């Protein structure tokens, strides 16, 4: 056990350096210095307090989404629809905020209600994917992808239709909400400690569910061997649905915080690809919830660190995506090599 964990760690380290080497080769091929690129990314993410605050802004939705995906992954489900669940969370939150925009209800209550509204909407959207799978036989990957497209269509419809800005509708989104509807931020920085706390609590809850509860054990049983779980008397389709609902609610919370703490309105690209990125983080941490914190922080740092690359080095900022993807790719490949060759010895 200890030996396999050690060899796993060594192979992950190898994967990390292979990924760095591969991306360096790509950089050399386009005539850029890998050293400068990595230095600029590091500087762009933790070079100043302001930049690090931006990393945390990106870290919050990523961690929330990853927390939810750890549940669906444990249940053996590929919840690709998580991207749409973030979007619906944002839509639900925007809807609640709009309801109370001219009311005399205390803003704090409105914000709390709106976040719950977002979580409910995200869970509902996840329940769609779950129902399509359980009752319609549609694989969750394809149902989820389809629902992602629908959620984008819905956002655009709302922004250009019923929720359009006074005067002219545009891709810049809906009318920004008054400042009282924003989660309080740290002075001079964009990060809200409230959203950081919500994300932190979420990952702890997920850790607790998976490690310490009978409920978590049943979800894992369904994920490991659905037939055996069924024979043991676990209502498998219900547990699949529960895991969809939890994941959808957490993704919905991510969308809610994008509205109340970051953009203060609904914008077309509100989910910003955090759902797909969260799937990669969840794959990388391999069911270990606590590891989601450093990995999500690292991925968020790459995202923010690459923003300056086009200005500083004339490189496309998608370099962060390449690095993240190549890293997960090499982890998967080295894990396969390890299982194939090391276990037999």
């Amino acid at each position: 056990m200890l030996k396999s964990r050690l060899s796993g760690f060594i192979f992950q380290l190898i994967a990390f350096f292979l990924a760095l080497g591969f991306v360096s080769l790509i950089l050399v091929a386009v005539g850029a210095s890998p050293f400068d690129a990595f230095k600029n990314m590091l500087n762009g993410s933790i070079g100043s307090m302001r930049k690090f605050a931006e990393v945390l802004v990106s870290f919050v939705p990523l961690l929330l989404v990853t927390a939810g995906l750890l549940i669906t992954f444990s249940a053996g489900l590929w919840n690709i629809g998580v991207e749409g669940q973030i979007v619906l969370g944002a839509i639900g939150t925007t809807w609640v905020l709009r309801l109370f925009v001219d009311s005399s209800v205390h803003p704090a209550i409105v914000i709390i209600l709106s976040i719950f509204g977002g979580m409910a909407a995200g869970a509902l959207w996840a329940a769609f994917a779950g129902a399509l799978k359980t009752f319609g036989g549609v694989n969750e990957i394809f149902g989820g992808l389809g629902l992602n497209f629908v959620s984008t269509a819905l956002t655009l419809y709302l922004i250009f239709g019923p929720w359009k800005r006074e005067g002219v509708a545009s891709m810049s989104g809906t009318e920004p909400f008054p400042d009282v509807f924003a989660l309080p931020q740290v002075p001079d920085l964009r990060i809200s400690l409230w959203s950081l706390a919500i994300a932190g609590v979420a990952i702890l809850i997920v850790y607790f569910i998976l490690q310490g509860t009978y409920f978590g054990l049943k979800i894992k049983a369904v994920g490991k061997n659905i037939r055996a779980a069924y024979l043991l008397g676990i209502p498998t389709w219900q547990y699949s649905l529960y895991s969809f609902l939890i994941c959808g609610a957490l993704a919905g919370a991510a969308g809610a915080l994008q509205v109340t703490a970051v953009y203060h309105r609904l914008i077309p690209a509100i989910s910003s690809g955090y759902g797909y990125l969260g799937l990669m983080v969840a794959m990388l941490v391999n069911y270990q919830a606590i590891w989601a914190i450093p990995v999500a922080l690292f991925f968020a740092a790459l995202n923010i660190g690459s923003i300056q690359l086009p200005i500083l080095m004339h490189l496309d900022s998608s370099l962060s995506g390449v690095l993240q993807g190549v890293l997960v790719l090499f982890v998967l490949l080295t894990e396969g090599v390890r299982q194939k060759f090391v276990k037999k010895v």
Partner: protein
Amino acid sequence: MNQETLLVGLAGVLAAAAPIIFAVLGETLSERAGVINLSMNGTILLTAMSGFAVAYTTDSLLLGFLAGMVIGALVALVVAFASITLKQSQVAIGFVLALTCRDLAYFLGNPFMGVSGPRLQAMPIPALSAIPIIGPLFFRQELSTYISYIVIFLAWLWIFRTRPGLMLQGIGEKPAAAYIRGANVNVMRYVYTVIGGALIGLAGPTYSLGVRAGWMGTISGLDGIGWIALSITIFGGWNPARAAFGSYLFAFLQWLGLVLQPVLTQVPSQVLQVAPFPLMILTLLLVNIGDAEWVERTLAAMPETTRKFMAKLLRAMRASPPAALGVPFERD
């Protein structure tokens, strides 16, 4: 709308469906052999970019298309190696490749953004293109569109009318039985995944050197097409003819969205562009729902005539995936 513009529009639908057909048929071959190549969305973007980049730098369209096929085959090779040899999850590896190849396309394609390069020209076929209606519809197209007609026919012929095609069906349905019959299951899976990948890799250059000439980075409008192609593969029931029908239907719906835009002014244009996607889910539901147990129960409760009609309808829509799809093969 007069007949002339209608014909031009419909001919455009045939051309727009060509890249989707390449991708869907490539995926169909791969899945028939039992391997899901989920990387398609990234592969199409990467091959679109690299096909354009190669054609632009070498001034050779042929090399551009070849580059696309080689890169598509290489990505598929990674999927095959990880899933067949290393026995890792096909879904995981494919998904990671889908994202990585997409970002790689944006990263490497940066210098080629917005430059104008070579593109395919329409190649009317002598005599055939002069036939009224049929000529302008089918035979005044680009070379890639003609190739798409041929590929549909060849893929169908190969799978359903040849011995190796029969073996292909076998390794996807009952690999153990095919193995006993002398098929080297894993080698064949490698071969079909790589050939399928090369076909998917043809889709990218068909966009960037034809249908939507050029490379525009994130605003190329190609992100998402691969996911659509994956659902059309299911809609197509792993049958090239039905898959081609699905591709044409999708291209037709997208065209219809454009045509209807001036009529349906109250619907924002952005919504019409994505309207085919929800329809895709609906068809997926119809394709799969016949297998659900509660449907059978509901059907049984219906009056005789309705029941027969509904059952027939569901059976016609239904498509079952190859039984061993995504399952690694081990001889023992």
